[in-house]
C-alpha cells in the first residue's frame, strides 16, 4: 500500500508515492506536521497540500537532516514549480 502525490491540475499522473514500509521513516515528521495543521496529513484519506504545507514539510525534513531523501527533493521541486498537491491516502 502507498500514499500517492498528484498534481492538482493534472490528476492523471502520479508524481510521487511513499510505500507503507518507507512511511515509517516520516512518522515523526507527520506527527509534528499534524499537530500544527489539525491532523491534515491523513494517510487513509485524501487531502491537499498547499504552498504553506509543503514549505513546512520541507522545513521539518531539513530539521531531521533527511535532505538526501527523494521525498525531500520531490517537495522542493513541487515548491519551486508552485504546485498544489493532491494526496490520495490508502
Amino acid at each position, binding site marked *: *500500500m502507498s500514499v500517492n502525490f498528484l498534481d492538482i491540475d493534472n490528476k492523471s499522473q502520479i508524481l510521487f508515492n511513499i510505500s*507503507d514500509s518507507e512511511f515509517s521513516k516520516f512518522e515523526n515528521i507527520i506527527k509534528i506536521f499534524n499537530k500544527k495543521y489539525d491532523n491534515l496529513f491523513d494517510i487513509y*484519506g485524501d487531502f491537499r497540500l498547499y504552498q504553506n504545507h509543503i514549505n513546512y514539510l520541507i522545513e521539518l525534513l531539513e530539521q531531521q537532516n533527511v535532505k538526501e531523501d527523494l521525498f525531500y527533493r520531490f517537495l522542493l521541486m513541487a515548491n519551486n514549480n508552485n504546485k498544489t498537491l493532491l494526496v490520495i491516502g*490508502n
Partner: protein
Amino acid sequence: MSYKKEANGELDITDSNDFYPFGMNFVRDAEENAYFGTGSYTNYKYNGKELQETGMYDYGWRQYMPDAARWMQLDPLVEDTEDPYAYVFNNPIKLTDPDGRAPEDGIEECCSNLKGFTLSMVDNVTGGNLTQKYNDGSAAYNDGVLTGNATSFIAGGLLMVTGCGDIGTGSTGLIASGGVSSTGGGVVVGGPGAVLSGGLILSGTLKMGLGGVMMYNSSQNLKNTKHTDNRHVDRTKYPEKSKYSKPAQKEKLQQRTVKNPDKVTEQGKRTKYEKTFKRVIGTKGETSHRVIVDKKKGKIVTSFPQKAN
C-alpha cells in the same frame, strides 16, 4: 418432510423423518417408513441437505457424517477454528451450517439484521450514534445498518418531495384566501382558509427539514463503506491500490481481523488492526489484512489487503 401436489390439488406427504440433534434418523413405526431413493427430491433430509449413498450429507463444501457427528473433511477455514472436524461447535440445537464452512445462528442473525436496521433508522433521524454503541460486529448487523441507511436516504428524499408539495399547496391556498378576503365579505371565509394553508406550509417545512436531516445523516453514514469499496474493491478506480481478490469476503475479513488480530497499533484517534491469513486475500498475492477503526465513532475508516510484514 417432503410432499407433492396431487392432481386434485391436495398435498400428499411422500416422506417424513425425525432426527436426533446431530442428524441420525429416528427409526419409527413400520407404517411411517422413511423413504430413501437415489436422485430423488425425497433425499433432502436433515437440514434440507441431500443424503448420499455413502450415508453422508452433502453440504457443498464438505460431507457430514450424522452417525459420527463429525465432518468427513477438514474445515476449509481451518485457521479460524480449534476443532476443524466438529459440526457446528457441537451445538446443533442452536446453530446450523449452511454450506459446510462455518456455523450460523439463524435466529440471532435475523435479530441482528433487524437491530442494525432499526438503530440506523433512529440514528439517521436523531443524528445519534446508537449503531456503534450496540454494534455486535456481525455481518447481519452490518447488512441491517447498510439497508437502514439506504432506506432512510430514500425516505428522506420522499419526505422532502412531499414537504415541497405541501408548501406549494399551502402557498396557493394562502393566495386564494387572500383573494377571497379582498373581494369583501370574504374575511370569514378567507380566514380559515389562510389558517389551513398556513398549517400546510408549516408541516411542509417540517417535512423538508426532517427529510434533509435524514438524507444528510444517512449519506454520511454510507460514506465509510464507499471508501473501501471505491478503492479496494472496484477494479476500475484507483488501479494503484491493493484490491480484495474476493470482494464478497470483505466484511468477513474485517470482522476476523478486528476480533482476532495479530497486531494492534494505536494511532491517535484510530486503531490499526493487522492479521495475516494463511491464504491469498488480495489480487497481487497479499496475505495480510489491515483494518483502521475510528475509536470515537467505532466505525471502520478503511480496510485493505497488504503484503505480510
